[in-house]
């Protein structure tokens, strides 16, 4: 049974000048239970839109989104979402942020705090329970955002360029930690990124989208052995081979998207 299925979805948005903007056109995508799927594509190709459709934050204009063979009708609480920008609550302490999910789902406060402490220990944030979010670095904030979603034990985890704001070293360390956490509960993951290296290092399957309106250009199975250490995997010759293959597919799309933005700038100037 597929954990996630997008069947010929098209998503249009109304633009400010009264027109419509097509973000996704006739896109189909399947992610199996426990599979880690990375979605790459040039800027503005609708990568993030696929996530909002799966999560139920938005409805497709045409086509259907399914989670565990059931059509998505609204926000499903079996889905976890890690946002690109900080979406942790700055007015809650680290501990209360992680405990928020269980509390919203009706667990008692004591029980939720106990769970949260356990998750903070797993991401190495013991001793930081009482900190405010502004006292943490970007990497530490992500280490609050991850357990905040994972504590609900989602069967689906959606991640929207979660590490794009981090510096390169922190990013690869966080990626390794993510794989470690993912291994504990094995949700089906859709990980959106523009960084191909990150995509290959993390995923079982890499999906390349076309320049907007986005649709699937090609899919690649990543058969690198697990467990992986993201900091070192790029030295593996198989990694390089895969990178070349996928980049071949991605390159034309990136060039196309870039050409479009520069053309737009010329029109504007």
């Amino acid at each position, binding site marked *: 049974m597929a954990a996630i299925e997008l069947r010929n979805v098209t998503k249009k948005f109304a633009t400010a000048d009264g027109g419509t903007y097509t973000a996704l056109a006739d896109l189909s995508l399947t992610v199996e239970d426990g599979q880690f799927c990375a979605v790459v594509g040039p800027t503005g190709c609708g990568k993030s839109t696929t996530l909002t459709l799966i999560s139920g934050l938005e409805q497709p204009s045409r086509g259907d989104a399914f989670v565990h063979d059931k059509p998505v009708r609204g926000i499903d609480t079996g889905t976890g*979402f890690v946002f690109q920008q900080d979406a942790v609550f700055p007015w809650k302490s680290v501990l209360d942020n992680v405990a928020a999910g269980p509390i919203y789902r009706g667990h008692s406060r004591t029980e939720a705090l106990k769970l949260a402490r356990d998750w903070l220990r797993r991401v190495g944030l013991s001793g930081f329970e009482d900190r405010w979010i*502004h006292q943490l670095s970007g990497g530490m904030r992500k280490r609050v955002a991850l357990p905040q979603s994972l504590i609900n034990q989602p069967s689906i985890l959606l991640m929207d360029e979660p590490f794009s704001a981090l510096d390169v070293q922190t990013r690869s360390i966080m990626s390794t930690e993510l794989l470690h956490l993912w291994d504990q509960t094995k949700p089906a993951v859709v990980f959106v990124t523009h960084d191909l290296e990150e995509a290959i290092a993390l995923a079982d399957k890499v999906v390349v989208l076309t320049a907007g309106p986005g649709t699937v250009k090609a899919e690649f199975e990543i058969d690198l052995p697990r467990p992986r250490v993201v900091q070192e995997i790029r030295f593996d010759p198989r990694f390089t081979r895969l990178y070349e293959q996928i980049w071949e597919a991605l390159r034309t799309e990136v060039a196309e998207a870039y050409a479009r933005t520069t053309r737009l700038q010329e029109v504007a100037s």
Partner: protein
Amino acid sequence: MIDTPTRTDGTSHGISTPTGPPAPGAGRSPRAQARRRRTLLSGSRFTIIVVLLGVWQLCVNAKVVDPFFWGEPKGVWADLYEWFTVGTSQGSLADQIVVTLEEAVLGFVIGSILGVVCGIALGRVRLLSELFAPFLKAANSIPRIILGSIFTVAFGFGIQSNVMLAVVLVFFGVFFNAFQGAREVDRNLIANARLLGASRWQVTRDVVLPSAFTWILASLHISFGFALIGALVGEILGANQGLGLLIRSSQNNFDMNGVLAGMVLVAVIALAAEALITLLERRLLRWRPPQTHGGAAVQ
């Protein structure tokens, strides 16, 4: 519990002192320097007041300024002294202050709560805002202080009418800020809370309200001033006690020193209230990074 030290980021986590790095052994400590600066500032402020009052008094003595119209510092002081020691024409000064304070505080609390509740409700429920926003805008544009005349006639000379006037003045400022605050909440935060399983009410209580509090607290600073104005104007329009009445009867006796003495008392109350609200703000917004704390720059 095993305390795992942070290993990945290599970031410092002792960011609690934003006032610059302490430099031990580097000449005078920054704290002593800051204290010196503060003493110097308060000294200068005090000098400014003394000079201003002195010039005023000298002008009166030199007959440049007529104290009948403009009052004089000596007379204001004499009036204040008499009110404190002997009492006012309406009874003890403490009673007058308590009455005005009671009206202002009641008006402030009721008006703020109504403003926050209505502002958040309209900010969250689209239908409500579409329905009521034009009425509220219209009501905000009329000079509400005039309502004081109606309240005085309707509710008499007790504190009720003055409280009502303070409520009306406070409500709109708080309301519009709460409304704006509720609509400016980061969409990501709301989406995150909903995905984590929060109900609509939980989103309102846990995300919208704390986020809007930055806006609401900004309006509370001004609102206590409005509450005081409401209470005073209400008393001037008709009351049997209070600082407003004291100012009014001084005016009727052509005693400008009395009017000014009343003003001084009101200013002291307003400043004390402002300090309390700043304390409240610090407590409620302690999650924010210190450098953006409202009011810190004024200290």
